[in-house]
């Protein structure tokens, strides 16, 4: 797969530690909602490092959008989230991953469950859903640490079927749900197994492991449960 040169056209802070990078990629072949790219950075002496980032923009958009959360001791994310300016170029290749994708070609219900930055590919799916005016009922359950960590907060506030739960927020300003994603939350904010929903789970290892196990225990067919995991390491 070829490395492509992408030019930054805009950077938008999402939270104190996350930024959405909008890119012009002249030879971009197009992607499916849920896919990711590999980004490669090269230092002046030729040293290189690569990491994978989920695509936030829906298929068919004229700019490729990545939302990068800065991991303070990470190798690549601090540069992407803090040092990139409009006009800078980075190398990337993709799209990668042909399994954790939602194409919107049928009306089966969809449950998206994201933890932390795992919400990024799910938001691509929601944006695709909107863009193609899909009739498939789609719900998002999104677990973030604090209110300040919620990505796409304004956009998600305008979508009906979104449940956000905070796991470490001590402030009194949040009047939404708190606590980890559990059986009860997935039963009320998701779909019953009898409806045969497509389930997409994305986030850190422990989050995905817990949520996927709950879904299977609830009776969801395991072939309907697709997972994508981000390790906390590296960044």
């Amino acid at each position, binding site marked *: 797969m070829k490395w492509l040169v992408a030019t930054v056209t805009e950077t938008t802070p999402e939270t104190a530690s996350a930024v959405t990078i909008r890119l012009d990629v002249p030879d971009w072949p197009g992607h499916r909602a849920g896919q990711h790219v590999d980004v490669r*950075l090269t230092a002046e002496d030729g040293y290189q490092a690569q990491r994978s980032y989920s695509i936030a923009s829906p298929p068919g958009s004229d700019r490729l959008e990545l939302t990068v959360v800065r991991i303070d001791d990470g190798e690549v994310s601090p540069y992407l989230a803090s040092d990139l300016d409009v006009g800078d170029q*980075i*190398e990337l290749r993709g799209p*990668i991953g042909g399994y954790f994708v939602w194409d919107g070609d049928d009306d089966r219900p969809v449950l998206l469950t994201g933890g932390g930055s795992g919400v990024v590919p799910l938001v691509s799916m929601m944006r695709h859903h909107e863009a193609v005016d899909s009739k498939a009922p789609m719900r998002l359950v999104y677990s973030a640490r604090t209110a300040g960590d919620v990505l796409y907060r304004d956009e998600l506030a305008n979508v009906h079927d979104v449940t956000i739960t905070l796991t470490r927020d001590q402030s009194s300003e949040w009047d939404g749900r708190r606590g980890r994603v559990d059986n009860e939350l997935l039963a009320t904010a998701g779909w019953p197994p009898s409806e045969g929903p497509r389930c997409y789970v994305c986030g850190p290892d422990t989050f995905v492991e817990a949520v996927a196990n709950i879904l299977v225990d609830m009776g969801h067919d*395991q072939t309907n449960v697709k997972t994508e995991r981000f*390790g906390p*390491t590296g960044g």
Partner: protein
Amino acid sequence: MAIVNRGFKGRRSQAGAGLIPPGQYLVDDFPVLTAGPTQFTPLAEWDFTILDESGAAAGRWTWEEFQALPADDIIVDIHCVTKWSKLGTHWRGVSVDTLMEGVETSAEFVVAFSDGGYTTNLPLADVLDGQAWVAFGYDGEALESEHGGPARLLVPHLYFWKSAKWVRGLRLLNEDEPGFWEAVGYHNYGDPWREQRYWGD
């Protein structure tokens, strides 16, 4: 010629330089990667089967029979296509050579199949001659479910998706047949030292 990202320094002091393939970085933990939920097959229902190119069972072991086979202690470096590498991992497992001892075949390819429907394809030559194991122990303990227990394939010279978790058998084939990831964009062979991550690499 690569674009130079001014101001990018990277982590030069990384231990293990020269021991990890291009594009990889070292981790100390053991990340988990799967396309679907973890599988939990009771040992009483577990078996391992080798199907020959006619589709006939050429070997089959229950968990007890499998445990009675001679096993190796294996210390290897592993490399995941998602870019982490882990050095000096300790495994215990049965060599595929041992499992193939009584099997007559002219097949050149093999597909490993797993609980949950996962498959991955390899040249038969890549799982013979001390290059592959069916591993059931990790770091002195039984292999945990989320890392592929009760048993997973271990083919450390290829990217780790070839080391199928929850493996239940090998299907011998005359013609190559792409597995789960190989059918959706990942490289058919997956040599980390040649950075064969995706189609066309």
